[in-house]
């Protein structure tokens, strides 16, 4: 019933014995919905992120997957303290970020780069490519002189596969793939230890997407970068991630090493997601059974009682609408939040 993947050599996970680089515990981001003209009162609360915990170790990639509205982008923004962080704990290199003032956040941000989805909207059209890439160097005072600045910008452009001569051009002179390379160059300019990649390759054509994925893997090897890789494309996530967390309605429903999650998904939602992805192999595709989920994602404003997935779950029983399942360890390094899922 679940999709099986014959090939099993996955990426070797980096050493996870030391301290995690990023440690997120019980992160909650709630958006109040207010009504009323003069006296506004809260009528409902959208629990966009509802008790999310994960660790990322140096040099490791955590893939965060889920469908639209699952809370993956909100979780990433809360990590970098870009929106109202809400409750919980976000520790980066041992330092608690929740509650830090924006001036105290500034030196921390140097160590966290971010690459966005839209390579057109995320670059200032009036700035030259060189200044876009070099801006973090200026902001954080990382260049000693004008010459040093120019040299660093040139070397950043070379690192991401662009020519240093392109520093003089404006964003509209670049193709989508080249713009995303500029976005990556800007994100690594201040020599961060963590990159947050929010759907960074989703908008690219497949031949260009492959180039950027290879670039990201090279940079990780070269600089021991950790990635929080957010995407909805599960084949891309498997390709680049060491660990994967699957989100549904603001909660992590399953987390495991990439190899285990794709070989043996335990949560019925993960199983359905994996089975929904068509592979470019007609023989394999036509012989395989798919799990087709009923219905749409429930509104985060009005989540179902009990397990959020119970309304669409193919194996749900009465108990699923009565109690909220917690993440349980069902296999080594593999946890799933399902009352019915069974491990070994």
């Amino acid at each position, binding site marked *: 019933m679940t*999709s099986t*993947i*014959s*090939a*099993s*050599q*996955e*990426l*070797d996970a980096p050493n996870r014995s030391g301290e995690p680089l990023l440690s997120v515990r019980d992160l909650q981001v709630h958006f109040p919905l207010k009504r009323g003209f003069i006296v506004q009162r809260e009528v409902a609360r959208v629990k966009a992120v509802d008790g999310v915990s994960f660790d990322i170790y140096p040099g490791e990639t955590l893939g965060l997957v889920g*469908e*639209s509205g699952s809370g993956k982008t909100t979780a990433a923004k809360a990590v970098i303290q870009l929106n109202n962080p809400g409750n919980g704990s976000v520790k980066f290199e041992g330092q608690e970020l929740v509650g830090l003032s924006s001036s105290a956040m500034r030196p921390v941000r140097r160590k966290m780069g971010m690459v966005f989805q839209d390579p057109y909207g995320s670059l200032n059209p009036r700035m030259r490519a060189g200044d876009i890439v070099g801006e973090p160097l200026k902001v954080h005072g990382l260049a000693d002189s004008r010459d040093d600045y120019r040299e660093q910008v040139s070397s950043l452009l070379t690192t991401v596969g662009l020519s240093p001569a392109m520093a003089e051009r404006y964003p509209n002179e670049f*193709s989508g*793939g*080249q713009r995303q390379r500029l976005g990556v160059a800007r994100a690594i300019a201040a020599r961060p230890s963590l990159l947050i990649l929010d759907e960074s390759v989703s908008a690219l*054509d*497949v*031949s*260009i*997407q*492959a*180039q950027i*994925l*290879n670039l990201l*893997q090279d940079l990780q090897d070269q600089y021991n970068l950790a990635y929080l890789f957010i995407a*909805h494309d*599960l*084949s*891309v996530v*498997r*390709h*680049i991630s060491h660990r994967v967390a699957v989100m549904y309605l603001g909660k992590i429903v399953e987390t495991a090493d*990439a*190899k285990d999650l*794709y070989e043996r998904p335990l949560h019925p939602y993960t199983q*359905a*997601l*994996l*089975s*929904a*992805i*068509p*592979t*470019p*192999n*007609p*023989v*394999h*595709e*036509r012989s395989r059974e*798919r799990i*087709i*989920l009923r219905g*749409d*994602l429930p509104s985060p404003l009005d989540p179902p009682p009990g397990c959020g997935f119970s309304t*669409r779950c193919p194996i749900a029983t009465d108990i699923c609408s009565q109690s909220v399942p917690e993440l349980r360890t069902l296999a080594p390094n593999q946890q799933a939040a399902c009352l019915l899922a069974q491990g070994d």
Partner: protein
Amino acid sequence: MTTDSRATSSPLLQVRDLRTSFNTPEGKIPAVSGVSFDVNHGETLGLVGESGCGKSVSALSIMRLVPNPPGVIESGEVLFEGIDLLKISDKEMQSVRGAGIGMIFQEPMSSLNPVLTIGRQITEPLGVHLGLSGAAAESRAAELLEMVGIADSRRRLGDHPHQLSGGQRQRVMIAIALSCEPKLLIADEATTALDVTIQAQILELMKNLTTQLGTALMIITHNLGIIARYADRLNVMYAGKIRESGTAEQVYMSPSHPYTVGLLNSVPRLDRPASERLDPIEGEIPDPANLPAGCAFAPRCRWATAKCEVSEPVLEQVEDRQLVACFESKTVSESVEIAWQ
């Protein structure tokens, strides 16, 4: 699968040397440059390629929906049941759209009219093409909604598009497109904007309904997986031309055009080891206003020779039903066979 009897009878749609271009201040830009293909009765044909390859403009040209100006269908034939759609009057074309060929687009929100009820939008083509009105049209509309899996269909006829989810809107689009039982349904990136679990629902629905009704289906997408699962045959397009064409088995299992090989090696695949490094196509998609001389793919091609830079290869048969436009196709398919073992 296409049966032999279908293969021998004349095709439902024959596109012959279609050329469409856009006039811009920078000059004339070719979007489709001499495309020919057939769609047989009841079969599913895939049209695959990256942005700007001309797959959507091909479909819009078939439907005569290319915005003019700036777009111009310059030459070619689009024979639908033997009649050249490029020669008939606008009025005659209107009766082909909907009744003969239905079309579903990527953005269900902008393809539906936001101020009209769902019911009104489904009954409109029923009135125009089938002469149904009043209660008859309404009950047919409710039947259609039920057919595409929308529960409580009578009541939902009074809903406006914003009251539906993205998946439901696409279901309504399918209901409208199939309402007059067209012989061909064109789905242009119809599931691209949807979440994967919803995408799977909509694709299964589309495939099941077209099989049930005997409708031919043309799926236009950049997603190689979708084509592999649903299409009997496919055309791979690059820079306005078909570069390879064949059955799904032929094109995916023994590709013979370097671009097809490049596409298949670019995507991370769940059926291959994750540790495998991707082997992307080098360089960028060429600017359609400045296409290279000779084969448009030559600058990115690892098999290109001096000949490829000056002369343009045409589609030639390499296997029964498999056509490839490449001078080096034999070398390409042999080296792929070795690499994939």
